[in-house]
């Protein structure tokens, strides 16, 4: 079975979980669209399934896992630099 690049855990999710490392410059197919990765990303990190506006909830597992603090483009890395907790902020490593 060919290894998938990402997993969408729930149909409502607006982020995808990477199942392997991706390299900057690597093209990825998301649905019918093609997007080029801007940075190297490790397994387990999230990329946007569609464009996300500032203040929009980030949805994973079908529930909100936080809120966007910047505008996020399709396929972009979603992490501490552009989203934050609705509960207790994470201290950046």
């Amino acid at each position, binding site marked *: 079975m060919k*290894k998938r690049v990402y997993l969408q855990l729930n149909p409502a999710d607006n982020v995808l979980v990477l199942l392997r490392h991706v390299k900057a410059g690597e093209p990825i197919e998301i649905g019918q669209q093609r997007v080029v990765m801007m940075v190297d990303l490790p397994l387990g990190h999230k990329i946007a399934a569609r464009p996300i506006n500032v203040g929009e909830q980030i949805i994973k597992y079908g*529930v909100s*896992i936080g809120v966007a603090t910047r505008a996020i483009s399709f396929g972009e890395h979603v992490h501490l630099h552009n989203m934050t*907790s609705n*509960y*207790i902020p994470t201290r950046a*490593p």
Partner: protein
Amino acid sequence: MHREAKGYARSDGRIGIRNVLLVVYLVECAHHVAREIARPFGRQGVHLIGFPGCYPSEYAARMMNSLCTHPNVGAVLLVSLGCESFDRAALESHVASSGRPVATLVIQSKGGTRKTIRTGRRWVKETLSRLDSVRRIPVRVHDLVIGTICGGSDATSGITANPATGLVFDRFVAEGAACIFEETGELIGCEDVIAARAITPTLGRLLRDSVRKAAKYYTTLGHGSFAVGNAEGGLTTLEEKSMGAYCKSGSSKISGLLKPGDKPPRGGLYLLDIVPDGEVRFGFPNICDNAEIAELIACGCHLILFTTGRGSVVGSAISPVIKICGNPETTKRLKDDIDVDAGRVLDGVASLQEVANDIYELTWRVAGGAQTRSEALGHQEFILTYKYFEPAGPACFPVPSEPQ
């Protein structure tokens, strides 16, 4: 088919899957002596645990009462300096009432380090032979208490190891075992889904309260239950980590809310509340994974299903730890330390159910005496610190109502 394993009969009716001799230091000042007593016997089922604090702690006393009479424990040697606050007589009496061989060595009375070590080792050697005569009887599924914890989580934990463990929990609960999950600090964001699974509405309210208590506690601390490694592994927020962690509990109804030392009254799924009551007195609720494991064991857990992504290597004193790794890269790198490879799901070579079946079968083998990887490597971590809890109220253990 009725599964069973060969267990050790205890006087309170519970059955152990190990027959450990515990050497217990009652203050840090007695730690070295206790360690030296236990050291020659490390691979013969002699485990070292202890409480480092000199000042009184109801919590530590309660934990030690539970740990020293755990079904996996066959005998106990207490090692006291002599002037610490821990009530050694009360603990010895509690263990003696359980029918287990127990002795107390007081370093200041005995005459110092050398004499206490000599006497202690002699007692351990004699008692190990006595332990051979503990009655063996079958352990069945309704005798089992199984705990779960995640440690060293990354983003794979919530999509492979944790959901697979949830499926195992569902199966064990359906068959009549008691299964316990915890880390209310990592259920922040999951209050609604958790409360909906309670067997009574009152319990649902208490479950919500316990998560709210955790949120308040961590907000006061200014730090959620979130480590640097979690973020490096792709988890961004506490509620994201919570949703991943929450999957470990499976989908059974929740039968009760425990505090450390409470024993589940019957089979079912239980939540263990590990966040202290009252003001933030002693810092982080649990300073590391083994502190939580100790609390699960105090509730009677025979063994622990431990899911990891970054790669925890710990085991525990008293109860064996089964290590389930969700990240295929970690499993490759730490292959000697991992019992179950859940990352196969990401590689597309196994389903969650197949991984769950592997965990289930391994649990029975471990119950029957097979060593886990951490056990075989000699891991016997133990941590006990200062905490404070109010007793759990009767509403935490509702009697399930008859079906309509």
